[in-house]
Structure formats: C-alpha cells, structure tokens
C-alpha cells in the first residue's frame, strides 16, 4: 500500500486538524500520531466530544472554526492543516455559514501562519445530482440544493481559488459515502434508521452507492498532504468495487438480523409515498392545539390573554355541554401522528432529491487519485463492513 511512499514525511511535523472530535478527523488525528509520528493539534469546540480524541497525545486547543483569534492561536507554528470540521449545530443556514466562512477564516489563518499546505475535505455532493455512468473530476460542479452540499461547494471553490492565487497551497478531497466505525451518516444513522423503520430502495437498489472505508479516505488525505501533485487539485475518493445500494443497505440489514428492512419502489412510487406522507403530516392548527395541550404553561398563558378569557367565557356560557365535550375531546387528539395499522415497521419516506440520489447509477472514478496521489484502496467492501459490524456490535448499535 502507498503508505511506504510517505513514510517519514510527516514525522515531527506540526499538524492542525479541525473536526478532530469527529469521525474522519478523529481517525486522521489517530493515524497522524500513531502511524506517522506527527505533532497533532486539534481545534475543539465541544470538550465533551473530545474524550475519544485525547486517547492520543494531541494538543487540544479550545475554540471555534469561525473565530479568527482561536484560529490564529491554533494555526501558529503549524506546517500542515487538515480541515475536516463542518457545521453540525444550529440552523441549516448557520451550518452553511460555518462551512463556508469557517473554511475561509481557517485558510486565512493558515496562510498567515505560513503553513506549507492545507487539505480540505469536500464532498462528492459538489457535483450535484449525478448522472448514470462514470463520474470523474472533469464533471461540472453544481448545486445539489441543500445547505450542506451547496455550502461545501462554495467552500471548495474558495479553497481552490486561494490555492491558485498562490497564497496557500491547498489540496481538496471529495469523498463519496464514507462508512466505518463511528461513521455518523453512512453507518450509525443507517443502522438507527433500519432499526426504526424500513428503507426504500429505488428500483430495487440498483443505484450505485460508491462506499469508501474511513481508513482509505484517511490514507488519501495523508497522501494529499505530502504529494506535490496534489496542490491545487481536487480528488474523488471512493472504494475500488462497484457496490449498489442494495448491497450497501443489505449488509447493514444483515448486521441487524434476518428480517428484511428494505422496500423496493420505483421512483414514481417513492414520490407518491413521499407526497402521501407529507399530506398526513399534522397541519399548523392541529399542531398548535397539540402544543397547547402538552405545554401547560403555554396553554395557561394563552388562555389568560384577554381574548383567551373572553373565548372561554363565551364558550362556557353559549355552547351546549355536548359541544364543549367535543372540543375537549378534539383538544386531546389533535395532531397526533398516525399510528401504523399493522405491526410492521414504518417506511421512511424519501424526499424527491434523495430519490434522485439513490436512483443514479453513477460510478465514481478514482483514476486521478491513483495517478497523482498513488492512492490505492486497501479495504474491500467485505473487509470494511466486517470491521464496521464488529464495532457496531461493541457500540451496542445492533
């Protein structure tokens, strides 16, 4: 494997990692320390989330990726910067702002600190809704239509612009569906969602999943940090095999037992299901009544307004007793979510954009990463998933 190619190149270097409390940044920090002997600094916003990261001798700097003074402290004396942090709290708009502005401010701090390179973790989603067939880095970038993907696209553009301006060499990685121990989206969330309900497989799940095991992605990031050819370039990072969503969800299904947790639908059926699910969602008035019923303090405050008191007075004097009972009964049931009629697990509805995402038979090419970085996935799907299953069992997720 390609590690031999960079052996020793990171030893003793001071490396800043953002997102080190997370899935990818955490494993990156671990390997930088244990495998490469780098001096790792981690910018940490939430102390409670950092307990796993501090198993290794890393220097924790408490701060926020959007705070220039925290960034200046963190970046000072750093030779290399890996940017894995992204917005994970607050509104979607705020998260998008963190993704874009955090990247700009971090790279600016890295430039001021005279770092020799930054590696920015982008996403496959910068290609928007992808078409069937091969996809490589020459494909046009376009908005996918959600805050995460679109802000990552903006941040990636910004990073590449900074690199081409000569201010700071930057390499960009575009991972596909990253899975593995501690994976929040393509591991934990999949397992939790399969436990709580059934997953729709579009066209029997023949779309391409393009999974990549976390350690392969981390290897690509390490290569991008040291290979000269990486500067100013973006690289798709994916596993070697062609894996369908059927195989991907099927493997998670198998971890949970024999019971089928997936449902086949055509895109049209999935869209119909989405629409009917949407129609069943509580309307504003029903939901308002439910909130009033559940929150005693709010109910009392609303009832004690002048209008509220007047309405109650009117109702109790003018309405017949039977009507009053009906209103009370309605208050008691308003806005309750529909209860599934059978004992079967509910089907998770897919929003239209995700129907397109799961339908696409896009095969992500990794030729560029292989050619310029010397990237070679070391984990086939079976091995990566076996490790993931062992972890999930230990983590009480199965």
């Amino acid at each position, binding site marked *: *494997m390609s*590690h*031999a190619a960079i*052996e020793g190149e990171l*030893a003793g270097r001071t490396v800043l990692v953002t997102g080190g409390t997370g899935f990818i940044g955490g494993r990156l920090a*671990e*390997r930088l*320390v*244990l*495998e*490469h*002997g780098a001096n790792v600094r981690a910018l*940490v916003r939430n*102390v*409670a989330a*950092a*307990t*796993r990261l*501090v*198993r*290794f*001798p*890393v220097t*924790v700097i*408490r701060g926020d990726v959007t705070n220039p003074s925290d960034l200046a402290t963190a970046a000072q004396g750093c030779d290399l910067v890996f940017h894995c942090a992204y917005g994970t709290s607050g509104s979607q708009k705020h998260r998008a702002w963190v993704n874009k502005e955090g990247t700009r401010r971090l790279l600016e701090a890295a430039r001021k600190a005279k770092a020799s390179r930054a590696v920015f973790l982008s996403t496959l989603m910068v290609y928007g809704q992808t078409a069937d067939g091969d996809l490589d880095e020459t494909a046009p970038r376009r908005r996918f239509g959600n805050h995460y993907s679109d802000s990552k696209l903006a941040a990636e553009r910004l990073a590449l612009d900074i690199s081409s301006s000569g201010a700071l060499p930057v390499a960009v990685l575009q991972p596909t569906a990253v899975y*593995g*121990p501690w994976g929040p989206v393509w591991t934990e969330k999949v397992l939790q969602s399969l436990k709580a309900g059934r997953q729709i497989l579009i066209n029997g799940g023949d779309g391409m999943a393009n999974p990549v095991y976390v*350690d392969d992605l981390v*290897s690509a990031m390490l290569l991008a940090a040291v290979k000269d050819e990486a500067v100013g370039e973006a690289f798709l990072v994916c596993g070697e095999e062609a894996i369908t969503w059927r195989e991907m969800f099927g493997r998670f299904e198998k971890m949970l037992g024999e019971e089928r947790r997936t449902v086949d639908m055509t895109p049209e059926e999935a869209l119909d299901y989405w629409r009917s699910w949407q129609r069943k969602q509580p309307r504003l008035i029903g939901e308002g009544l439910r909130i009033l019923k559940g929150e005693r303090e709010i109910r009392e405050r609303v009832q004690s307004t002048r209008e509220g008191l007047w309405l109650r007075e009117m109702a109790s004097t003018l309405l017949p007793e039977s009507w009053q009972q009906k209103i009370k009964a309605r208050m008691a049931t308003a806005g309750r979510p529909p209860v599934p009629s059978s004992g079967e697990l509910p089907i998770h509805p897919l929003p239209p954009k995700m129907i397109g995402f799961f339908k696409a038979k896009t095969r992500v090419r990794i030729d560029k990463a292989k050619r310029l970085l010397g990237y070679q996935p*070391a*984990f086939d799907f079976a091995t990566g998933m076996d*490790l*993931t299953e*062992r*972890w999930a069992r*230990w*983590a*009480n997720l199965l």
Partner: protein
Amino acid sequence: MEANDRKLRLAVVGCGAVAAIHHLPALSLSRGAEAVVLVDADLGRARDLAARFGVPETATDIRSLPGRVDAAIVAVPNSLHAPVSIELLRQGVHVLVEKPMAVNVKECDEIIAAAEAGGAVLAVGLEFRFFDFSLLVRNLLHDGLLGKIRRFEMHMGVIPRWPFATDFLLKKETAGGGVLADLGVHVLDILLWWLGDWADVEYRDDAQGGLESDCELLLAFRSGVMGTVEISRTHNLSNTCLFEGERASLEVGIWDPDPQVRLLIEDREVVLAGRARRQEGSGTTFLDAFVRQIDDFAAAVRDRREPHVPGREGRRIQTLVEACYARRKFLEMPWSVLPSPRERVS
C-alpha cells in the same frame, strides 16, 4: 442551641459545571449549609453564578477564606484538589472535596493528614452513595439475601454531554486520568462500598499516549468475590450491576438515580422488581443526592462526627485507580488496528 441551628457558612471553590449544575442548586435547598462566597480564578464566572444563585460574595483565591467561612466545597480541576484542600484544612476550614479526591494516593494521604492537623472535617464527593438504590443494594448484600456471591458484572457507559467550563478533563496533568478517574471513580466506589476492600485487579484500557475513554477491569475482593467492570465514555452501555449469588441474583441500574432493582430467587421462579425508595418524593434525582451530601457534611461538622464518605474512602478508591494504571494493558479493538501496522512509528 443557637449556634447549632446556624447554617454552615460555606465557600464554593471552583465555579465550573459541577458547581453550577449540582452544588449550588443543592445548597439553595440545603437546610444545613449556605454558600456565602464563590471562588474562581475567572472572576466573571464566579460573579455570574453568584448573581444566579444569590451568593453575596466572590473571590479569586482561597487565601481570604479562613475566618470568613466555616467550610468549603472544593470543585476545582482534579490536579488542584490536593493543594487547595490541604491549605484550607490546615487552617481549620472543613472541606467537601469533589471526586476524585486527588490524582494519587500520596496526595490523598496528605489531605487526610491536613484534616487531622487542622482538626477539620473532610468529606469526599462520592454522591452515588446517597442514592436510595445504593443503600438498598448494600443492605441486601450485607444481609446475605443472595447467599454466597459467585460473581458480578458492572457495565457503565455514557456518551458525555457535560457542559465543561474548561478543558481540564482532556489533559493528563490536570485530570489525572481518563474515564477510570472520572466516571469510573463513582461506580467503583459504590462497588467497594457494597463489597468491601479490593484484593487484586487486572486492567485494560484504550489510551495510546493520552487518556483512556474505555476500560475493563477484572476485579477480585478480599471476600473472594470476583467480577468484571466495563466503563466507557464513548458508547452507551446497560448501566447496570448484576450480582449472581447462590440463592438469588440481583440486578440494579447504576446511572438512573431511581433505577429498577430486580431480585431473582433461584429455584423458586420468583422475580421481585421495583424501585428502591426510602421515602416518596426524594432520593430519586441527582439533586436529591447532592442535597443529602451537603446536609450530611453540615451535620458532620455540627455534630463533630465522621461524614458519610470520609477521606479514607476517597483514598481507598484511589488505591484501586492507581493500581489499575500501574498494571495497565492495552485494550485493543479489532477496528482500531492501523491499516499498515508494520509502518507504525515506534
């Protein structure tokens, strides 16, 4: 009579999360003690909490405390437990020190000696002993209801959501250890309270040059009882302790302050399950335990008696923690193996 009725005048030293979430709310409910001054190196933090909890005074160091207060709750970072407690105790200020009592046994000894020298009461903040369930389990075990205990297993794992005011817990120098020295001290302390002195331990954890976040113990007691303990701050576990005895098995929740207790009597097919409550409406929340802890401390000072958790108990748990770290073996997980181990930097 009057002197006895006066509330214990107390300083809270260290205004981090445990002061804000547990000690100050408990003090505002306590019949035996009241906070009169809050001390923190960060005066802004002390003033914020003083305003929130109606505490009249604030200070940035402990030198002004002797003479001003009867007692102090020491809730500073772990590595400062010993120096702060020692200085206060020597001058006769009674101390309730947060867990872990100190970062090593030697420091525990020094704290105990300082309490003796100053003629002051020393209590250790191991509030799990104030939950109703922990007393019930102790009584059941001591009454011999289970018969001879064959084995036990304890599983304690929670993903932390604690709103840390500082990052002291992330550093070896200030925390003294990882999950064992933090969450582990609580659950191992009740285990020792239930089963007595420990005799031998095998220990594994996942630290690789830093602080462990998962650990496993194979623990033997002087009574001959053996069992396993699993502690984690990376994933949720059942948070229970199970005792298997010759006559009966007992399973109890150890994180929920009002847990299920299940007693299964062998051969009789009898299962008794319920909650362990001494009195309705108290003893079922963390706040209740902290109120009981502070009231016990105040009563110990007033009555010149030993507190419910004296210094030697804090020391005893530290002997176990220290032995674990000294005998530490690596707890390797299959998925943590590096993809190219031969290229590891030695």
